[in-house]
């Protein structure tokens, strides 16, 4: 345990690949079991249609047509977008302290984006038509449909993140190749196609520019733009419409992503004795960032509440009053306040900080953001501008099939990490070979490691 002062090295980052504990199998087995349950539930849905959910038609129908599937979709996209922004910031601003988690954040982005994409498939009534309907009409729909923009952005970020990851992996794999297991030789050879040491500097620059691109596009194309536009541009639902959704979504995304990274690093540190790789100092820093973005999240909620209750028009007031009376919302916001209390207390007094507390805070934050997202979708639909119908607001409680999808995507994402962690280092070689690249150069490292 007393390894905090030990210098991290390549041995550390290779440990997950070379050693497999019983806990690994337990986690793998448990996650697989959940995935099987989810797949069974989904098959049931595919066979019978979306009637197996608790969704319904809004209006005379007395239901909500979007529910947990869309709520969870935007939550996953948020985590993904936050993750890539985090990693880009680390690279762009040379935040060396967080370099050990940069790749973890990128992997989180890939995992979470895949889950979001999966939710699009789960959510639609005719997933069999997705390809043949979306692609031929794409040149037109991309001009008008926010959902087409969404698909575009998810694809774009998947490609960008995968490129990012692929580029930085080459450096590591090349240098660690003879210590990596041979049964994945094909994969490593694929990753290393055309590699030469001369490319390192170029790749460094490419990654820097990619990071710049991601940061610049974040407000517009990521969770600050396209995803909230799915809702904010519709005047039919007063709970959704409004320009504040852009910044609100972005802060929720960043808050969720930092929580996700804290949880992942905590588990890895526990499993692989990475106390000297993921230091207490790093966790404290991440916790502070969580506090900052959490504060922004709560601040923007407050803005909306004030606007919704002070002198709002009828429809806008109805949705806000309903939200404030909703226990799910009260619990979510209460959780955020408690978490923020802890974070600011630990910022003032180091002794308040503990790893476990930060872990609990992160889990709590993810719960709060998920429930806020689902509630945002559901209540938005329950309080439409045209609320003459007696059956409005309808009722909605997710069905077992819907809940299974949430458990299933969490398990799938876990499986994704469990597989990845056996394939290549989830901590960059750069991060453990001496902090040398504060100026974005990274060339010092090149010379040091020739093994």
């Amino acid at each position, binding site marked *: 345990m007393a390894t905090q002062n030990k210098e991290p090295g390549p041995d550390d980052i290779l440990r997950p690949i070379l050693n497999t504990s019983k806990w690994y199998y337990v986690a793998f087995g448990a996650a697989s079991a959940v995935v099987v349950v989810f797949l069974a539930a989904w098959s049931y849905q595919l066979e*019978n*249609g*979306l*009637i*197996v*959910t*608790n*969704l*319904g*038609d*809004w*209006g*005379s*129908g*007395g*239901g909500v*047509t*979007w529910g947990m599937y869309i709520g969870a979709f935007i939550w996953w996209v948020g985590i993904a977008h936050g993750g890539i922004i985090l990693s880009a910031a680390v690279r762009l601003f040379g935040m060396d302290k967080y370099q050990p988690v940069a790749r973890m954040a990128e992997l989180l982005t890939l995992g979470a984006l895949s889950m979001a994409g999966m939710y*699009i498939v789960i*959510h*639609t*009534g*005719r*997933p069999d*038509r*997705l390809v*043949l*309907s*979306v692609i031929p*009409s794409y*040149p*037109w*729909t991309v001009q*008008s*449909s*926010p*959902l*087409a923009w969404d*698909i575009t952005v998810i694809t774009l970020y998947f490609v960008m993140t995968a490129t990012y990851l692929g580029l930085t992996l080459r450096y590591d794999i090349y240098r660690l190749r003879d210590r990596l297991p041979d049964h994945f030789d094909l994969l490593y050879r694929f990753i290393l196609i055309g590699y030469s040491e001369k490319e390192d500097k170029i790749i460094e620059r490419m990654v820097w520019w990619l990071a710049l691109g991601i940061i610049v596009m974040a407000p517009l194309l990521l969770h600050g733009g396209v995803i909230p536009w799915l809702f904010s541009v*519709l*005047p*039919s*639902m007063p709970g959704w419409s409004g320009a504040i959704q852009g910044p609100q979504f972005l802060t929720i995304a960043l808050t969720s992503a930092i929580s996700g990274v804290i949880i992942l690093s905590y588990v890895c540190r526990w499993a692989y004795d990475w106390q000297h790789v993921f230091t207490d100092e790093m966790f404290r820093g991440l916790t502070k960032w969580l506090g900052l973005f959490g504060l922004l999240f709560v601040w923007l909620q407050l803005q909306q509440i004030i606007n919704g209750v002070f002198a709002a*028009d*009828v*429809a806008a007031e109805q949705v806000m009053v309903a939200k404030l009376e909703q226990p799910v919302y009260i619990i979510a916001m209460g959780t955020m306040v408690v978490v923020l209390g802890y974070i600011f207390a630990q910022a003032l007094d180091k002794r308040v900080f503990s790893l476990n507390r930060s872990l609990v805070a992160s889990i709590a934050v993810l719960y709060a953001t998920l429930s806020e997202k689902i509630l945002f979708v559901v209540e938005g*639909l329950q309080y*439409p*501008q*045209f*609320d*003459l*119908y*007696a*059956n*409005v607001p*309808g*009722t909605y409680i997710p069905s077992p099939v819907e809940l299974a999808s949430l458990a299933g995507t969490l398990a799938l994402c876990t499986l994704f990490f469990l597989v990845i962690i056996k394939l290549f280092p989830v901590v960059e070689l750069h991060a453990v070979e001496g902090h040398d690249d504060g100026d974005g150069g990274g060339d010092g490292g090149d010379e040091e490691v020739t093994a």
Partner: protein
Amino acid sequence: MSTDESTDNDEPRHPYETDESFHPMGKEWEDQMREELEETDYDADLGMEMAKDAQRLVAGEISEKEFYQSYHDDVQEEFEVDDRPLFEDLDGVDPSDFDDDQSMFEALKDIDLEADDVSRRDMMKKMGAGAAFLTYGAYATQQNGRSDEVPQLVENLQTKEKNREHRWGMVIDLERCDGCLSCVSGCINENGTSTGANWMYVFAYVNEDTDQANFLVRPCQHCSNAPCEKVCPVRARHTREKDGLVLTNYETCIGCRYCQVACPYGVNYFQWGEPDTDLSELEHLEMRPEKVRSMDFDERKEALQTAAEDGDHIYDERGWWTDSRPPTGVMGKCTMCPSRQDDHTESPQGTVACQDACDEAGMSAIHFGDLEDEDSRPNRYLRKRSENVEENDRHFNDEDVVEGEDPDMWESTTNWGRLSSFKLLEDLNTQPNITYLGNEPGPNDKQVDPAEIREDPEKLDTPVSYEDLTGQDRWGNQVVDNRKEHLDYGPSGPPEEEA
């Protein structure tokens, strides 16, 4: 007109015509067209000029007569008689003979461009300049849904109004509605919709101040600026250019339900599970939709009319599956009976099932028709009602004049008298095509709980509840007001005794 390349800046332009290119598909397309023409032995400049003017002709900016007269001599001069089979038919035609009904455009359209099984490129080489026009002419006729190979790019760029023959809509007189739900039943009977999918929905709501009950008749508003269409990621929800109907292509809809979310009126009903009415009851054509679409216009029309004798009306004239109830996993809503508007069924064009039922019930609150036709039923109704109101207005004045008061103070000063009309949520800029006569619901008004009416039918003098409609249509479908309660039974449906 000369073959001079220079363009007069004062010439009328198309909405899509840019400095770079006159063609809606852009400069690249135009250049390619020119290249192909230059490979022929004919005058490419003439061809391009003709193509350009053909676009103006399509857009209605020059008349066919003008167009033909401009090129008649040029074409005569340019083409050898034997080398221009397509123009032979035109030799004897006197341009001055053309009137609106029998046009050269129509004549050209009838030439079967696909008969020779030649590629467009070959055809252009063969026919030279004239083909540039004809190719576009073919596109233009496809605009009217007369061909299967609709080049969607062109379709998309054309301004919608240009090709519109009708603008279907309704005037609904709420003061004539007593909530008998005949229209609801008529709609279910026509379309075979599932339990709770009340495409036509009629309900009573109470005004806070007066405590007076009013009825609202709520079909789809068939908006001219439909938000549901805008958000659709696959263009399944679309506005039919020909007549402004907002329809769903049941074959491409992916069931994302974004249209339902964007629609401010709540008129969409998703097919959550198996439809109550089996497809075999709706369709006896025994043809795949692709087969229907592959037919030419007349062939298809005949097939669909024959099918309609068996009660089929699931395809519109484009061969798109847009009518009757949707299949599983697809969005449905009021269609305004496109098969009727395409003249496939025995029910005449310009009628809808709900209106028929309303008339039959002796209420005549629904008036459907072409809103752009001054003499259509809704427009005539609107005129007549406003005249009546004005008369009553005056009549009322005479009776109520009190000595010493100015009799004019009672009189309306507008042409419309006191006729109260409104469109639902007009300020959301959806441009609905339903005009209501009667009281507009206020922001705090609320529908009377249907359960209350069920328990106490006397409450509103409406003895009919949705549940009462069960089994009244030809499918024998169950009818309910609150669909959620029904959906909660899950895929197996409600227990026997309740169904």
